[in-house]
């Protein structure tokens, strides 16, 4: 009778402990951010690994998402005779919502999993202990540049995603469906607000950058140093990041756009 209850309690305690360790790690990372000023090369390397190497998947996804948005949007808008507003609809959806969220999900899948596996394997092969024994703090040397690289890359990738998406929408809407070219761009220019739409979208994606990279690094750093442990951490990294991004997106949207 009491056994399941005890098990549940143990699970909850373990989860709370993990949450605590995660926050302590984030604190240690934030305290060590100055490290990249001393060694900027480490940051460039990670922005290349996380940002540049994600460009292809982010660009291609953005293009198709924009194209699909134009197709679907045209279908609805033309029923109300508002097909000229297609540009606004495509751009608003991308900049406010789909750009930050889909980019975060893609980065979690491509770069986050790689980060977790890399850190986890470094732990399993004693490389992190080796650094500690050489009197080098692995949090500052390994985690900090990756964290900052992920956080800074995310808004840039989201911006590229949205920009490519707008072009995709243009190709389909103007090129294929015959929406007026002038209307597509000028309505977009008139209706999309810099602060309301672009800045809020960027802020969202910055927040997603923090959580996705943090989760990926923590899962790697906290892994059970066996092959099974690393594989489980990698899965957990992607699943948790996706769920947290979607949940956080709701909260941020409510705060930013729900008046």
């Amino acid at each position: 009778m009491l056994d399941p209850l005890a098990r549940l309690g143990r699970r909850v305690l373990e989860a709370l402990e993990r949450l605590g360790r995660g926050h302590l790690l984030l604190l240690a990372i934030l305290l060590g951010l100055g490290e990249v000023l001393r060694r900027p090369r480490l940051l460039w390397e990670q922005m290349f690994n996380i940002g540049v190497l994600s460009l292809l998947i982010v660009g291609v996804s953005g293009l198709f998402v924009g194209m699909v948005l134009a197709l679907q949007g045209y279908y609805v808008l033309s029923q109300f005779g508002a097909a000229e507003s297609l540009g606004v609809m495509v751009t608003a959806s991308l900049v406010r919502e789909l750009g930050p969220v889909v980019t975060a999900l893609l980065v979690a899948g491509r770069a986050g999993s790689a980060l977790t596996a890399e850190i986890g394997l470094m732990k399993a092969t004693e490389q992190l202990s080796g650094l500690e024994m050489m009197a080098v703090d692995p949090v500052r040397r390994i985690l900090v540049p990756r964290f900052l690289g992920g956080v800074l890359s995310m808004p840039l990738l989201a911006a590229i995603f949205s920009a490519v998406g707008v072009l995709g929408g243009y190709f389909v809407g103007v090129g294929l469906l015959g929406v007026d070219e002038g209307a597509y761009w000028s309505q977009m220019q008139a209706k999309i607000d810099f602060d309301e739409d672009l800045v809020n979208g960027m802020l969202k994606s910055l927040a997603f950058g923090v959580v996705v990279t943090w989760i990926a690094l923590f899962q790697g750093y906290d892994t059970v140093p066996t092959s099974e442990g690393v594989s489980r951490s990698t899965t957990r990294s992607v699943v948790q990041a996706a769920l947290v991004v979607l949940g956080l997106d709701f909260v941020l949207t409510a705060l930013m756009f729900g008046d």
Partner: protein
Amino acid sequence: MSSDAVDARPEVLVEIRGLCFRRGERVIFEDLDLDIRRGTVTAVMGPSGTGKTTLLKLITGQLHPDAGTIRVAGQEVTRLNTAALFRLRQRMGMLFQSGALLTDLSVFDNVAYPLREHTNLSASMVRKLVLLKLEAVGLRGARDLMPAELSGGMARRVALARAIALDPMMILYDEPFTGQDPISMGMLMALIRQLNDASGLTSILVSHDVRETASIADYLYVIFEGRVVARGTPDALAADQSAWVRQFMDGLPDGPVHFHYPAPALAEDLLTRRAR
């Protein structure tokens, strides 16, 4: 023991007193005493799972004991803050079982890593030092290889070159002979002894390879179930007649350490109706 007493014995580099360490319910060390004398190769032996690696991690401050004192060069490791601990670690080298080389750096850069990290030496000076250290382990020609291209024995020798890069006072070896072929085993044994004597180092070696270890060590500790069960020079232990020491030194399958993991009687176990 008071600090005066330690200073009165400068020949002891590492002094462990009353060390207790637990992992959850499991007791790893219980009231362990151990001395490492300067300039010697001291081996800590014992069956797998007796916490030999844990002992190294306690000495280097990577783990904290539940009770007891660990003094290295007169400093109480358990009470040092991170900065002081890192300063102390710059004077220790550790050779991990896996080598623990950074996989994204070449052999040269791995050995140069601690030099670039902790000194302001010029690039040409770093190069000279790295080549000298690699020469000492016989791998100057392998400087451009990546860790993945090295054999296990070579990786360990590169790691050894890295461990001595900053000319430490002490090197800790974690199972240096495990999984080595006879040739690289011989190379490692010779290297450990030579480095110790030529550079005036102190070496702590954790191993369960009895013959190899006994042949290069000056002093042996045998630990079992959290305590030191035997200590002495290799010759003294070879002559020791206690059942435990004989079983361990001669590799006998049964004795004080049983062949069987604790279990209910076989007949009883077979007659029980259970899935496992």
